[in-house]
């Protein structure tokens, strides 16, 4: 049993190690945002879209969402589509987000000319976005991201529990371990109770 758990503990660490370091590092950047470069730059350009040319001003929510995916494919926009918005002058706003980049497309129904604004964040905002990216929506790569996030989250819980088992099985003298584990567990449980009541 000990060898099996130790092997899984080790090998699963090798599989998700890079992800864990990424989350730890991006978490660290979020704890100290002033230590890292931030900033933002914005560019705007005009593009031509055959989909926009045939766009109707009246679209339901489902149709507008489907359209945002089609526009992304046509114009090679790689972010996760957000809910499209319609302005008072009938212009449609399609937004796409990925870590560090926000693409906003302004589409006037009937016109093939669309305006694309790209906002690029610096290092710290990109790391923050990467840390916050979650959910399964937005196409295959965002689905995979959501899946890996679940995998790493489950791995965190597994590492903790299997680590406790491995310590218990490996060490004959357990007093220090009990003090450390008991103290930290009491602190976490106490913190939850403090916030609960």
């Amino acid at each position, binding site marked *: 049993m000990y060898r099996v758990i130790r092997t899984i503990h080790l090998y699963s660490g090798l599989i998700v190690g890079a992800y864990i370091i990424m989350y*730890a590092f991006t978490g660290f950047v979020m704890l100290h945002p002033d230590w890292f470069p931030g900033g933002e730059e914005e560019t705007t350009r005009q593009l031509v879209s055959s989909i926009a040319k045939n766009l109707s001003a009246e679209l339901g929510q489902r149709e507008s969402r489907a359209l945002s995916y089609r526009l992304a494919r046509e114009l090679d926009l790689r972010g996760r589509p957000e809910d499209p918005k319609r302005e008072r002058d009938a212009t449609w706003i399609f937004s796409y987000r990925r870590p560090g980049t926000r693409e906003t497309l302004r589409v006037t129904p009937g016109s093939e000319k669309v305006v694309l604004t790209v906002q690029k964040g610096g290092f710290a905002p990109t790391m923050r976005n990467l840390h916050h990216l979650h*959910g399964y929506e937005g196409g295959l790569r965002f689905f995979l991201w959501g899946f890996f996030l679940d995998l790493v989250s489950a791995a965190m819980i597994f590492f903790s529990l299997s680590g406790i088992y491995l310590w218990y099985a490996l060490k004959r003298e357990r007093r220090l371990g009990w003090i450390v584990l008991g103290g930290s567990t009491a602190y976490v449980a106490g913190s939850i109770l403090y916030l609960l009541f």
Partner: protein
Amino acid sequence: MKKILLDIHIYLSLFCAGYLVIYGLSSIAFNHDIRSSATQVEWQRQIAVPEAASDQALAEALRDALDLSGWVPSWRLRREEPHILVCAVNRPGKSYRLRLDQNSGKVQVTETREGLWGIVKGLHGLRELPNSPWGASWGLYTEISVWALIFAVLSGFYFWWLRPAARLPGWWLLLAGSGGSILFILYIIW
């Protein structure tokens, strides 16, 4: 060398095990938008209205007078009438809507309890909590856990390297798992 590193790996991990479980559970909760069902309670309190130079300062003084902890968001601050201040106080697991009558000193509080999931999600990246010394201690625990996690992964790589029989399958897993993850992270950003 190995024994020292292994002991640090074990005891640091035991120290941070609680945070890692919170981190894992909260990440799953964020990924699937899991929430506890919220409950509301209302209560009233009479206070001596504090002196303050601005509405924001008054709201924060009101929070302190009620012995609450949490942030007072400026965008949820408003005057219902010239003598009635309405504000919110947010903290992991709970949010409060405060309505202060400055003439009478009466405060009506609507307390929304977001349950265990609200607390677990709030603890994910908490650095500090206004009007609560405990908040800073959790921020420190989080910081130590982040460093401990990085150390645990890197020392884990070292322990793997010390086991010749595990090197070949380990390389495959490392290349496919961690190598693939790095490429995927770059692909997501690109």
